[in-house]
């Protein structure tokens, strides 16, 4: 009787261990989304003023896309920092099929030069990390198709005559597969980096 109970305990323990292993490596996890992004092809600019045909330039690669504006003091820098942490983790794990991009929803102020300054001071590794800006209408169309809200708030004028305004905005990182389909969405500023890494592994090369 005791032997039978011991065998059953062993089987259950093994099964539990296998489940934990499967969960931690991301295998077998089904991603919650599988829908077209709805983005119509446009020409955007990166931080070096090079033309990027979006989203075609990222087809065939897994894309992690976030939305920011560089005048944001709190939320957007957190998102950028999380993107950097994800990039570092991908590098550590030799995962080279992912591209990371941050698109500005404030193209009037976020010129390529400003995006470059924003990235440089944070030591961004541009090898697989791109900042994107472009024509205001093109950006608006992308935001609309991806349900990203970005509404300029109160405007104030400083003593030196500078106009200051901030955005109320969606806080999001989106995972897009190599066919251009949205596969998951995460909160950008406070996110579970390991979950994103697991989802990327689930998609595979």
């Amino acid at each position, binding site marked *: 009787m005791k032997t039978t109970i011991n065998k059953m305990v062993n089987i259950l323990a093994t099964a539990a261990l296998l489940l934990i292993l499967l969960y931690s490596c991301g295998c077998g996890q089904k991603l919650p989304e599988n829908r077209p992004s709805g983005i119509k092809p446009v020409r955007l600019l990166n931080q070096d003023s090079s033309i990027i045909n979006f989203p075609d330039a990222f087809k065939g690669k897994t894309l992690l896309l976030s939305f920011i504006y*560089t*005048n*944001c*003091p*709190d*939320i957007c*820098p*957190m998102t950028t*920092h999380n993107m*950097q942490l994800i990039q570092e983790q991908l590098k550590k794990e030799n995962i080279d099929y992912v591209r990371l991009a941050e698109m500005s929803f404030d193209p009037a102020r976020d010129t390529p030069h*400003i995006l470059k*300054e*924003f990235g*440089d*001071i*944070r*030591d961004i590794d541009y090898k697989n990390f791109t900042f994107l800006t472009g024509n205001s209408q093109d950006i608006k169309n992308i935001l609309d198709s991806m349900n990203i*809200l970005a*509404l300029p*708030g109160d405007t104030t004028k*400083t*003593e*030196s005559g*500078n106009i*200051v305004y*901030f*955005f*109320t*905005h*969606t*806080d999001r990182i989106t995972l897009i597969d190599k066919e251009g389909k949205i596969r998951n969405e995460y909160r950008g*500023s*406070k996110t579970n980096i390991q979950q994103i890494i697991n989802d990327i592994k689930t998609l595979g090369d």
Partner: protein
Amino acid sequence: MVLFLSLLALLNSFSPKVKIENAWVRPAARGMNSALYFNLDNVTTKADALYKVTSKSAEVVQLHSTVKNNDGTMGMKEIKQIAIPAKSVVKFEPGGYHVMLINLKRSLRPHSKIEFTFYFKSAGKVKVKAIVKKE
């Protein structure tokens, strides 16, 4: 009498006030914005309030709070002062309270330092140096 009052003033300057701990700032280029974070530890038995922070390195410095709206969007609002109850810690941290630095007069590079002056209702003026770090 003058000596006695001077002694009292001296003793008061050594008495415990609100402590400003772990002050740090996000990196940002000249002309852009950043945020200052820290912990306020009110070790006294009297409530206090932070109502102003200044810095020569930014054109405008404001007390802000990040807010999450019902539709999930994130925004900010300026706050006039922040109460610090007696024997308590108030945290200024990413995604919550922060001191907003608008239109920086110099670039804030990682590991560099920036000086601030904090103004408290009771504790008065306190100078603090914050470190610039990526977080």
